[in-house]
Each structure stands twice: as C-alpha cells, then as structure tokens.
C-alpha cells in the first residue's frame, strides 16, 4: 500500500465518527421528518399510538390551501428580498467608507459589527419598542413621538401593526426588515472589508495610473473582485432570512392578521400548541427545500470551482 493510500485510509477513519453522527442526526432525522409530514399524526393521541398511516401529500395540500401559510410564503419572499438587498448595499457602502482608513474608522468598524453580537430576541424587543406606534393620534410612542417632536406628525404611521399592503407585500414588514438589516449589515460589511483589503494595491494603483476615476474603480475593478463575497453574503443572509423566527416572534408576535408571520412561527404554533405534528413537519420540509434552493447551487458552484 502506498503512503498516500495509507494516509487516505487514516483520514477516512478520522472523519468516520463525524460522518456517522451527521448521517444519524442530520440525514436520518430529515428522513424522519419527511416520514412524519406524510402521516396522519395531527394529534397527540395519533402520534402516541405509534401506528404510522401514510396519507401522501395531504398535509402539504392542506398547507398550500391555508391562507395563513400563503401569507407566510409571500412574507418570506419579500422579507428575504429586502433584507438581502439592504444588508448587501449597506454592507458595501460601509465597507468602502471604512476602507478609506479615515481617523476613527476602526472604532466604527467595531461599532457596525457590534449588533451581530446581540441576540435576535433582544433586537426584536428593542426595535419593537422603537416602532411601537402608540395610541395615535393622541399619544404616540417611539419613532412616532420623535416624528411629532420634529414637527413631522404627518409621517406618523402604524408601523408593524399596519395592515396595509401593496400587492402581496405587507407594509408591516418594513420595520422588521429595518431591524434585521440593522443587525446583520455590520457582518456583511466585515465580509466586504476583508474582500476589499485582499485586492492587491498594485492593481488599484495601476488603474489609477491609467486614469480611472473613483466610480470606475469601484464598478470595474472592486465589484468584480468582490463577486465571491457577494455570493457568500447572499447565502449566509438568505438562509438566515428563510428560517427567521426569534426576531419576529419577539418584535411583533406575528402581527394583526399575521401580516408579519413566517413559516417558522407557524411551524412552532402547529407543533407545540396545536399538536399537529404532521403539518408542522410539512412546514419544516418546505423550509428545508427553500433553504436548499439557496444553498445547493452555491455548493455546486464552489465544488466546481475547486476542481
């Protein structure tokens, strides 16, 4: 046996325990969830009876006919879209400012990164206070009070308790998106900053010697170089957003008529309040598919890149 083969074999044995654990605790459990989602286990007694009765995709069918779940899917779509866009745009913007190495930039770098260290529950509670509308128009609270003191009472609004919507986009999501963006944009900034600092100085200097302006430098040199960063940021923020629970649960409950409801919240209620295990598992599987739709193309492209 060659040395290389020996090494490979040793390596295989070293990762074997992890493989086994992942196999059981990830893939086998995913399989169990799929199995539950196609069962009739929609009460504690049917679950305890242990008798598995296959009912096909009926739980999924029921979900897609459920107006609340339809709202959840639209909310997830819009939340993900705006949360992603907000984090990436703000992240690039902040990273470019910090990268100029002005005085105090390292202080601001830490300041922007700081929200990421806070739990979503805390963020949700605090932003919940900030955006609490107060009893309009007589006694506004939070931002509405600030607006009143600034003389901009006409901008006062119901924020996350608003039931207005444009198409399927519930405007009550806006404050939630702001809070989420506040939390994660610092992290995206840090990713971009690392990317910007990895661009060779010579390249920038060469471009400058050739007479390119700041904007050209940004769009023609920096942005293409940062493309992999954008992709990873989209993956990280995207999968967080698809499974978001704690921020919204703490901030809005799920809003009047579920305007800020998300699949994870619905899953929690179905599972632990209503004892509808099969329905809850179906929601979990739908969430898994949504996350997989984001992650798998990324894994595929990075796998191809390595080869």
């Amino acid at each position, binding site marked *: 046996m060659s040395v290389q083969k020996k090494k490979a074999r040793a390596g295989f044995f070293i990762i074997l325990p992890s493989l086994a654990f992942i196999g059981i605790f990830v893939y086998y459990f995913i399989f169990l969830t799929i199995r539950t989602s196609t069962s009739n286990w929609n009460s504690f007694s049917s679950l305890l009876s242990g008798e598995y009765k296959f009912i096909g995709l009926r739980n999924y069918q029921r979900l897609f006919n459920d107006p*609340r779940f339809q709202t959840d899917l639209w909310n997830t779509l819009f939340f993900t879209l705006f949360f992603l866009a907000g984090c990436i745009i703000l992240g690039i913007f902040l990273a470019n400012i910090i990268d100029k190495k002005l005085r105090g930039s390292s202080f601001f770098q830490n300041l922007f990164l700081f929200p990421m260290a806070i739990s979503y529950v805390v963020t949700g509670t605090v932003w919940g206070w900030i955006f609490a509308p107060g*009893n309009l128009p007589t*006694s506004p609270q939070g931002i509405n009070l600030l607006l009143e003191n600034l003389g901009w009472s006409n901008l006062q609004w119901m924020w996350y308790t608003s039931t207005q919507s444009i198409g399927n986009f519930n405007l009550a999501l806006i404050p939630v998106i702001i809070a989420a963006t506040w939390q994660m944009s610092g992290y995206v900034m840090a990713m971009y900053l690392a990317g910007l600092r990895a661009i060779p100085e010579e390249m920038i200097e060469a471009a400058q010697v050739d007479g390119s302006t700041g904007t050209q430098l940004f769009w023609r040199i920096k942005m293409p170089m940062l493309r992999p960063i954008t992709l990873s940021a989209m993956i990280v923020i995207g999968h967080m957003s698809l499974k978001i629970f704690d921020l919204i649960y703490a901030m809005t409950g799920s809003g009047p008529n579920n305007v800020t409801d998300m699949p994870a919240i619905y899953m929690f209620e179905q599972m*632990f309040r209503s004892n509808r295990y099969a329905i809850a598992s179906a929601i979990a599987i739908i969430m898994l598919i949504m996350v997989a739709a984001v992650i798998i193309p990324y894994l595929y492209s990075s796998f191809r890149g390595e080869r």
Partner: protein
Amino acid sequence: MKKLVGIVLLSVLSFTMIFAQSGQVEIFSWWTGGGEEEALLATIQDFNELYPNIQVINATVAGGAGTNAKAVLKTRMLGGNPPDTFQVHAGWELTDTYVIPGLMEPLTEYLKAWRVYDKFPEGLIDIVSYQGEVYSIPLTVHRSNVVFYNKKLFNEIGLTKEPQTWNEFIKALEKAKAAGYTPLALGDKNKWPAGQLVENLMVAEFGAKNYNDLFNGELSFNDERLDSTLEKMVQLMDYVNVDHAALAWQDAARLLYEGKAVFNLMGDWAEGYFKTLGLIPGEDFGWFELPGTQAVFVLVSDTFGLPKNAPNRENALIFLKYLASTRAQSVFNPIKGAIPARIDADPGDDPYLIETAEDFRTLIISPSIVHGSAAPEAFVTSFNDAINNLVTTKNVKQAKQMILWAAEDVNLLTD
C-alpha cells in the same frame, strides 16, 4: 471482625432508613415570574417543613403563559421521562393531550380517600374529569370575565354606577371616548387577549349552559348567536386603543394604571398586577363582571396531575395530597393573587379575592377557551387566529367560517 461487620450493617441500615423516609419529587411548572414564583417557593418551603426528608426538585421553564414549558413537557412525556407531577390548566389542555392517549393516572379514589372530593365545586370537578374520573388536582382559580376600571377616570367622566347591561356598557365606553380617554384597553400582540374578550361575549350571548354545551357536543357551533357575538366584538373594537396589536396584556393593563384608559377586561391576574404597580383594590380601581356574565364564573384553573410511570410516585402522591389541603391552598394563592380551588380554604384579606371566592362558591362555572379548559389546543390556536382575523378585517362571516372549520377539525361541529 465483628466490629467491622457491625459497622457495615449499621451503615447499610441507616442508608436504607434514610432512603425509606426520603427521596425526591420533581414538580414541573411555568411559574417563574412575579408573584407566581414567590408563591411556588413559599409552598415548597411549607411542604419541606412537613416532610423535611423529601427533596423537592423545582423544575420550572420560563416563558409567557407556559408556551415553552408546554413544549418541554410534551417532549418529556413523549420520551417516557415524565416529571412526578406537573402544572396544567384544568380541562381539555390535560384531557386531550395526555388523558385520552392514556398517559395519566386517575386520581378520584385518592381524592375520596383524602376526603377532599366534595371540597371543590361540582362545576370545577366536571372540568378536571374525563369519563367520570378526576385527572388533576386544582390548586388555584382565576376568573376571566372581569372588567377592571380606573376609579378616578370613572368618576371624572361622570359615571356613577357600574354598567349592568350591554347598552349601559356601550354608553359608558361612549362617555370615555368623548372625554378623550381610551375606553377599553386591549393588548392582543399575543392574540389570546382578543380571544378572551370574545369567549366572554360568547358566555354573555349563549348563557353559561348553552356555552358549556358547545363543548359537550350538545349544541352546534353553527348557531346564530355566534354571529351576534362576533358582531359585538366588532362593535367593541371602536372603543379599543388603536395600537392594540403592539401591546401585551400587561401593557394594556398599564394604560389603566397610567390613567390613559378607563376599562380593561382581563383575567384577574391583572388584579395582582395592579397591586404590584401600587394600586389599592377598591380605592384606585374597581371591577365588575362583563355585562351578561354576572351569573357566571369563567374559570381558568391551575391544576396538578399524576403521570403514569412517575419516577417517585409515592412522593408525588404525598405532594398532591398536600396541594389538596387547605393549608397549601391558603399558602399559595394569596401570594399568587388567585383564589383557592377549595371552597373551604381562606382566600386572604384582599377585598377583590374575598368577593371572587364567594362568587366561586355560588355561581355557574364555565371553562375558558383560550386558556385551554374548554377545548383541545388545536381548536384554541385556530380560534385565536380567527379572532385575530376578525379584529383586523372586521369580517364577521369569514371569522365565523374559520371558527367552524376549527370546530370541525376537532370534532366539535356536531351537525
């Protein structure tokens, strides 16, 4: 050698002796906040004075209204690792989830042996029973059809008499609105406070007996009185603070404390909350039953059950017997701000609690929906969703349809 054998024998003996008198008992609850935790700790301390050798393991799980605790409990019950006894709301929350699947031990014979079976009102025994057997021992009783009001504002807007009828109530709300106050404080961020309002309107509209029959399967949900209930709720929404969806029940109660709102319908745990804020019952705030429900006691009760295969069954029974005693009920309840479930226990010296304890002895008892006593948990979640939809869209027809679907889902729709 003899000495050694003696020492060994002695130590074995003493070990078994300690073991015989002692051991542990694990009590599972969600009492982690405010007066609840104090009440629980005081009760455990009192229990330890009686049984110094039984070590009480206080397993509490924090989280509003037991949401997290219930999830943990379900996992433990499913995994075959039950606590020795656990807190649960009287009625369907226990029956549907644990009794019907056969996870609980009936307690009727113990209650009779301890001579306490007839110390609880019949209506309450009915709620904690399934097929003639009692499955949990009631410790505390709360009433949830009480409207609290700020006495100062009440007088200021020119009200002299507590409203007795629906029309008087609406007139009072109208007066409060005209004076620029929030007439009825509501905080339904967590959905159930709006559902609680509706269930009380249902009691008023159907009457206690018919309301109870809805959940016995003797009366169908598909009833015109459900429409008129929902219409009344829509009518009430004109008098509610506009930011109700951003507030929890405590925030709504606070509006009354801060002198911004006149009325607040809430379970009487709000009474305890007002007292913690420094208000004096009868002086700073008053109370009356929601008009139409004067003759009814809408009940939320905390009880303790005995799971099958409880690891320390003997100690659990000792603890349950203790909880059923007037001694334990009088220690626990005044601190929590509830009345004892036993009619012969001392309710303390709070004027509200004395009055409520008297009502509890004499009135008809109806179980609360949103607190899990009247219907299975699956119904409660859907019911809350329907009401949440109603207060947002004011669409009575749609809300009724949602309630009917929910009832059908748990086999409560009888026609």
